[in-house]
C-alpha cells in the first residue's frame, strides 16, 4: 500500500515541523524566563531560596525528560483531576526542563566572573541588585550566549519526546506516515534530515559565537 507520493510525505512532514518549532519556541522562551528567576534564586545569599532552586535544578537534571513528560501528562492529570491537553502538558514539561538547564548554564557564567568585580562594585556603593544589573550581568551575558544557543539544539531534539504523549509534531507525524506507507526507512530518514536542518545551523552558530566571545591567552 502506498498512497503517498514522496512529495506528499515531505509536505506532511514539513507541516508537522511547524509544531516542533512552535513547541521549541514556547519551551525556550518560557524556560528562559523561568530559568532566569531560578538562576537569581540559585545565586542569592538567602540559603532557603538557594536550596529550593538547587533541589529543583538537581531533580530536573537527574531525571529523564520522558519521565518529566509522563509525570506532567499522567501524574498531574490524576493528582489534580485535570484533563491536560497534550499541548499544555508538553509545554509545561519542556519549559520546566529547559528552565533547569538554562539556570545552571547561566549560574556557571555568573560564577565565572571574578570575585573582584563584586567587591569593586560593592566598594563603589552599589547595592546587590545594582551590582547584578550594572556590573555582573552585562559581563556574564556575553559569556553565556554560546552555551545558551547550544542548548537550543537540545530543546529542539527534546521536543521529539512530546510525540510519546501524543503531541503531533515532526516525530509523531513521521510515525503515522511510516505506519501508513510502510516505508519507515525513507520516512525516518527524511524526519532526521529535517531535524538536522533545524539543529545544525544552530550548532554552527554556537561554535562561531564561542570563538568570538572567548579570549585566548
Amino acid at each position, binding site marked *: 500500500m502506498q498512497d503517498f507520493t514522496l512529495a506528499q510525505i515531505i509536505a506532511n512532514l514539513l507541516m508537522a515541523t511547524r509544531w516542533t518549532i512552535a513547541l521549541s519556541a514556547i519551551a525556550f522562551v518560557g524556560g528562559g524566563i523561568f530559568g532566569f528567576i531560578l538562576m537569581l534564586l540559585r545565586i542569592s545569599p538567602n540559603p532557603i531560596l538557594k536550596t529550593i532552586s538547587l533541589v529543583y535544578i538537581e531533580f530536573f537534571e*537527574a531525571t529523564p525528560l*520522558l519521565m518529566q513528560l509522563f*509525570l506532567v501528562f499522567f501524574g498531574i492529570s*490524576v493528582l489534580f483531576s485535570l484533563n491536560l491537553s497534550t499541548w499544555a502538558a508538553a509545554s509545561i514539561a519542556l519549559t520546566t526542563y529547559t528552565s533547569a538547564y538554562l539556570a545552571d548554564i547561566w549560574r556557571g557564567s555568573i560564577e565565572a566572573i571574578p570575585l573582584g568585580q563584586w567587591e569593586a562594585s560593592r566598594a563603589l556603593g552599589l547595592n546587590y541588585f545594582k551590582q547584578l544589573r550594572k556590573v555582573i550581568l552585562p559581563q556574564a551575558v556575553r559569556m553565556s550566549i554560546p552555551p545558551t544557543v547550544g542548548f537550543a539544539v537540545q530543546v529542539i531534539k527534546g521536543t*521529539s519526546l512530546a510525540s510519546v504523549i501524543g503531541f503531533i509534531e515532526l*516525530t509523531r507525524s513521521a510515525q503515522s506516515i511510516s505506519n501508513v506507507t510502510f516505508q519507515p526507512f525513507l520516512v*525516518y530518514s527524511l524526519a532526521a534530515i529535517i531535524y538536522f536542518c533545524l539543529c545544525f545551523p544552530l550548532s554552527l552558530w554556537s561554535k562561531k559565537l564561542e570563538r568570538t566571545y572567548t579570549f585566548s591567552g
Partner: protein
Amino acid sequence: MEYTPQFSVVWNNLGLFLQGVLLTLQIVVVAIAFGLLLGIAGAMGRTSNNRYFNWIATAYVEFFRNTPFLIQLFFFYFGLPSIGVRMTPWQAAVLALAINFGAYATEIIRAGIEGIDKGQIEAGMSLGFKKLQIFRHIVLLPALGNIYPALISQVVIAVLFSSVVSQISAEELTFVGNYLQSRTFRSFEIYLAISLFYVAVVWFIKGIAYLIQRKFFAFTQYIR
C-alpha cells in the same frame, strides 16, 4: 473529587523496580563500552591528517549530535529491517545508544587529545622517555584526566536517554513504569518513584566517578 496518592503500589512492586534499574544499568554499560570504542575511533579520525577519515568522522559526529535520539532509535529499529537488518529491541536500543554516545564521546576525546601541549611531548623526549612512555604518561593519562568530568556528564546523559528505549519496548526501568501504570493506573505514584530511581542511579554513578577521580586523576589539579 480529591485524589489521595497511595504509594503501596511502589512498595509492593519494589522487586520489579529494582529489576528495571539493573536492566537499565545493563543497557547503559554495554552501550557505553561500545560507544567509547566508537568515540576513540572517531577522535582518531577527527584529528587525522587523512582528509577522508576526517570527513567521515565529522559527518558522523554532526549528524548524530543534531538529530533526536528517538528518531535515531526508530530508524534503527523500524527503518533498518526494510534493508534486511533485523534486531531485537534490546540490540537496537544498545546500538542506538552506543552510536549516540560515540558521537559525543568523539568530540570530548578529541578535545582531550588537542589539549595536550606539544611542548610537553618535546620535554618528555628531551628527558629520554621512550615513545610508549611518552604516550602513556604524557599524552594518555593527562588527556584522560582532563576529559574525565565531561565524559562522566555524558554517561549521566546516556542513563537519562536510555529511558527513551522503552518506546521500542526494550525492557528497562521506564518500561517497568509503563507496565505497572497500565495495570494499576497509579500513574503519579509510579512515575514519581521511577524518577527518584533515576536520581538514585545518577547519584550512584556520580559517586563512583568521584571516587575514581580522587584515586587516579588527583594530579589534574596541578596541571595548567
